[in-house]
């Protein structure tokens, strides 16, 4: 069996789905951030696979940008999380229900 484009896309879709389902069912904000990273890595796998099978470098280029920006995103997210923990002494989503309306 040869590994073709579709196999890579299945892996990428699986990673993306695992991340998204994790976001929906997990309650710890730190774990939510990890799930976000998993979703972005699913995207990276798809981009590299497309790049490889289409024979261009453009997709790989975009992947580098995604990796860099994802790092910045987590930095901002953790900063907000630290501010939140100082204020409310919790990182659990179910305890952040003050805004329900």
């Amino acid at each position, binding site marked *: 069996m040869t590994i073709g484009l579709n196999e890579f896309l299945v892996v*990428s879709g699986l990673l*993306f789905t695992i*991340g*998204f389902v994790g*976001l929906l069912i997990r309650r710890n*904000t730190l774990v*939510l*951030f990890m799930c*976000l990273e998993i*979703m*972005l890595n*699913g*995207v990276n796998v*798809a*981009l590299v*696979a*497309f790049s490889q099978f*289409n024979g*261009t470098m*453009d*997709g790989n*280029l*975009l992947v580098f*940008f*995604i990796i860099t*920006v994802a790092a*910045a*995103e987590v930095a*901002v*997210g953790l*900063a*907000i*999380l630290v*501010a*939140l923990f100082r*204020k*409310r002494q919790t990182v659990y989503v179910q305890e*952040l229900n*003050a*805004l329900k*309306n």
Partner: protein
Amino acid sequence: MNYPQLFLTTLPELIVVLGMFVALGFDYTKYKELDPQTRSNKVAALSTIALMLGLAGVVWQFLQVTDGSKTFSNSFNGQVVLTPLTLWFKGLIFVLALFVVQFAKTDVPNKHVSEYFGLILLSTLGMGFLITAQNLIMLFVSIELISLSLYGLTAFQTDKKFSVEAGIKYFTIGGVSSAFLLFGLSYLFGATNELSFEGITAAITSGAAPQNYVLIASAFLVVGLGFKIAAAPFHLWAPDTYQCGPVPVAAWVASGSKIASFFLLVQLFGPVLETSEQKETLIAGIVLVSVLSMVLGNIGALRQSCVKRLLAYSSIAHAGYILIGLVAANEDGSISVLFYAVIYSLATLGAFATIGIIDSRLGREAQIDDFNGTWKQNPGLSILFMIFILSLAGIPPLSGFFGKFYLFMAAIGSQPEIASWSEGFYWLVAVALLMSAVSLFYYVKVLKAFLVSADTPKLPSIQITKAEGAGLLLLAVLVVYLGIYPTGLVEFIAASLG
């Protein structure tokens, strides 16, 4: 690489970044010992100068481009495309940012003054780049620049109870939307093997791209961008962000980032909707999002007592109205979307700014009841607020009415061959009209408290600063002017789109 031209192309942004660093530097050194309000005024003045110089740069580029000189013909593979249309919208973003800085300076959330204005300037740059971007890399980077600055700004009010919480909600949901957007972009790249919009459009319209990939890409892009424009069912972050973040930031999220996102939506989906084989499916999806936004937004707004939250739900409803123009899938539709995005953001910026002024003098969140009889103590402020709210409601002499008129006409005119009223998009326009009528109820409820309530006024006479007064007045004049004379802007957009 043509470096002198790259320098001239990004000149306005470079000026603003330089201004931001000057403001940060002064704030950390020379202004360190001053009290927060003085620092805020000084840093805001520096930011204003930076934005004005940047705006001058944009105007210079605009004159160069309209003169037909070749200075900006190289777009660096679509990374920065300078046309009259993109430059006009970039200029508008800079102008709106100027307003936001004026409204923000009287009530800085905490002692980190220069970071607050720095983040506002950074998000301005992101919106400007998003408008000029016609390449997936630049698109992604500028969307993230906007989002990351806005997450920070929303969580900025650390002394208030819920600001940080709203920030983390905005961050998580925004992060998911970015991931969906990127997944869509990756399939768009996979289907077309191109990163520039030009190449992508060519590949899709010629039918060379695999249709199933295009469909997956479009679905994910609709979800991702639906989050950014706060369309239902992806609107869950909007009410909390608007209510609990600092008010100028809410105004900025509702105006600047909306314009940039709708501009992107038109550029990305416009050509695809007109020609692609998946046209029917895509349009059905967008119609669904549009109807859901109109219904959930307007129904949700009915039961709000907090004015900011009410405006948040109304912004969701407005996203629904604007999508009707996109559904038309022709040039008229694109024109009406861009026109409505402009006038909506002017009116909503004015409304939020008024609420912000009242909130900061009141020291807490204003409820509708707090406005009872404001007319007696603050007639000027009440009249300006009435103009903004009536424009949002779509009352004829004001620009909101013409915006909605163009949107609905574009949707109906897109199918000239239909035989009777039961076909085509008549039903969609009927839903929109019905929902506009529903929206009148809550807009008038707010106005009633302002204007005709017989109770003794709850609010004392409000002193507004010169900058705030000038900003509000200018916004109101623009809203009225675009209502009396909408054809100028519409013809400009039409001429530069074609």
